């Protein structure tokens, strides 16, 4: 038990409250076919259970918090890594939309290899060109499943 659990508990209490009050009532429609439970029953029930469990988690941590040494989850380096990761992921999505699979794959491979400390440009370019080309060949040419070409090239 630790502070992380307490924060997690508070997060899920808020999450379930927002869900119960603002989201479920507006995001479920019921026509009442055939009796039984309505479409809103399970979202409400799960959010209710989630909230109750989160309260338990917070309470149990609040009691024990003072006795424990806390582990640091994220330092400055960790946060910058997390931001980099998010940028890579969502940059890839956008890149695929605009530039297509082959160009973006080359960029992603080069970027991740560079960030992982590789400085051999010959290796970076070889992996960056050969790997996307082989994957493209397998899926788009052999299996006839088109991969995104990007709106700039289509």
């Amino acid at each position, binding site marked *: 038990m630790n502070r992380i659990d307490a924060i997690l508990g508070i997060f899920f209490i808020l999450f379930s409250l927002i869900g119960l009050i603002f989201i479920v009532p507006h995001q479920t429609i019921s026509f009442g076919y055939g009796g039984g*439970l309505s479409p809103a029953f399970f979202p409400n029930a799960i959010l209710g259970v989630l909230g109750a469990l989160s309260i338990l988690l917070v309470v149990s941590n609040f009691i024990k918090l003072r006795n424990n040494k806390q582990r640091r989850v994220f330092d400055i380096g960790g946060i910058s890594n*997390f931001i980099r990761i998010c940028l890579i992921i969502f940059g890839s999505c956008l890149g695929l939309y605009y530039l297509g699979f082959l160009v973006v794959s080359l960029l*992603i491979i080069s970027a991740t290899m560079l960030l992982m400390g590789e400085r051999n440009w010959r290796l970076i370019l070889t992996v960056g060109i050969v790997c996307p080309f082989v994957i493209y060949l397998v899926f788009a040419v052999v299996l006839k499943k088109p991969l995104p070409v990007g709106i700039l090239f289509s």
Partner: protein
Amino acid sequence: MFLGTEQLLGGLVDVFTAGNLLAIVLGIILGIVVGAAPGLNSIMAIAIAVPLTFYMSPLSAIVFLLAVNKGGTFGGSITAILINTPGSPESAVTGFDGYPLAQAGKAEKALKMSLYASVIGDTFSDLVLILVAAPLAAVALKMGPPEITAVIFFSLTLVVAMTGRSMLTGLIIACFGFLTALIGTDPIEGTSRLTFGIQVLDEGIPLIPTAIGLLAVTEIFLQFEKKTAGIKDDIVAVASTDPKDKTVSLKEFKGASKSIVRGSLIVTAIGALPGVGAIIAAFLSYGAAKRASKSPELFGKGSLEGLAAAESANNAVIGSNLIPLFALGIPGNVVAAILIGAFMIHGVIPGPMMFQEHGRLIAGIFIALLLANLANFIINLFSLKLFAKIVNVPKVIIFPIVFILCITGSYLSTGDLFGMVVMGLYGVIGYLMVKLDLSFLPMIIGFILGPIFEVSLRQTMILSDNSLMIFITRPISLAFILLSVISIWQFGVKRKRKQAALAK
């Protein structure tokens, strides 16, 4: 209900086609290659391989994925033995004795013993699966929605209770997974639910990108972080030149055979329970082998008995974990959860009805499971040295390639960028969960079992006119409700007491 001669013969004919045999061989090779790559494991191998199966027949697809799992599990043992970097937690037990053997220059001996134990354990559990699944499915077919609801509830309590560092956090994570599975079209009334008017969400959150995100992308992020922190790749120990150190003698095999049999027996029985994963199985088998051994002092220092016990257990779980999937449609572990998705992609709903509706397919899968074990043995026996070299491939090359494969798989699973967005989102969620020391297994199980639970409970409520008494008046459902209460007590309350005692 048992598979008839016609179905068995049909299955046999189906398996012995060039395409399906190739699927087995390629699956094993892909599994070993991915499993033996440092930082990757069999679950990632399957997550990456699922998109490849979109274009296969149902039999080829399932057989391919099962072969990937078998190959990947053994591949994980290669890294555990050679560089003490297990691809999966259960392979850690393999490293206890495998790595000291490799350090002593006996890596080839350790790998061979590991191979023998793996294939024996795996074959044993597959045979049990073949013998047990059909009769169990026959019983399951007699169950109605109340019984199915109670069984799923029991499975959920088992899975959630045995994963993660505390039952409370496990339950919270499972609830969150369940909640995300509710997004989409309501299964009974057909109305939109929690979609915020976004059309692409009407079909719900797709399983494959979710699994790829949580299982593969999370690991890529973690490895990426390690590399940027400057942590170097592991180095393989130099091998001995003595020929005796490269083979397993008959005497050594006989010495370890009891451990193999014991491990296979224990784990096949326990592994059939949903949620009781390979990790517990491997530790149980290892502990039992140590207690029964004439030389327990060698355990942890390079004991072939210990290595055989861990490996037979690791692999015996593969077959036994499929028992609840085939007989009841309930995933026993993450691999089975991904397999459910693969079955569904090909229009097959796992569970007892599968034996009636797709008997020939099941017969084919059963035969292919045994053939895959043979292929795993032969391929590894002749290519062990080659596969062992994969361990030396730098992570800086492996992970960017795997990342591109994940992107491709997610894109192909939905046919648009939505799959990729889901993959990315779940990759970030998985990364945060690992950082917060939370297991994402309850989330996947909640995501998969949740909708099945919802449908069966709502059907039950329609049947009973919204009375919960139906669960108590029917003996099977009552039995499973009682078992659920016991499991919550057993794993929740007792664990809390144990933790309190340890804290004192």
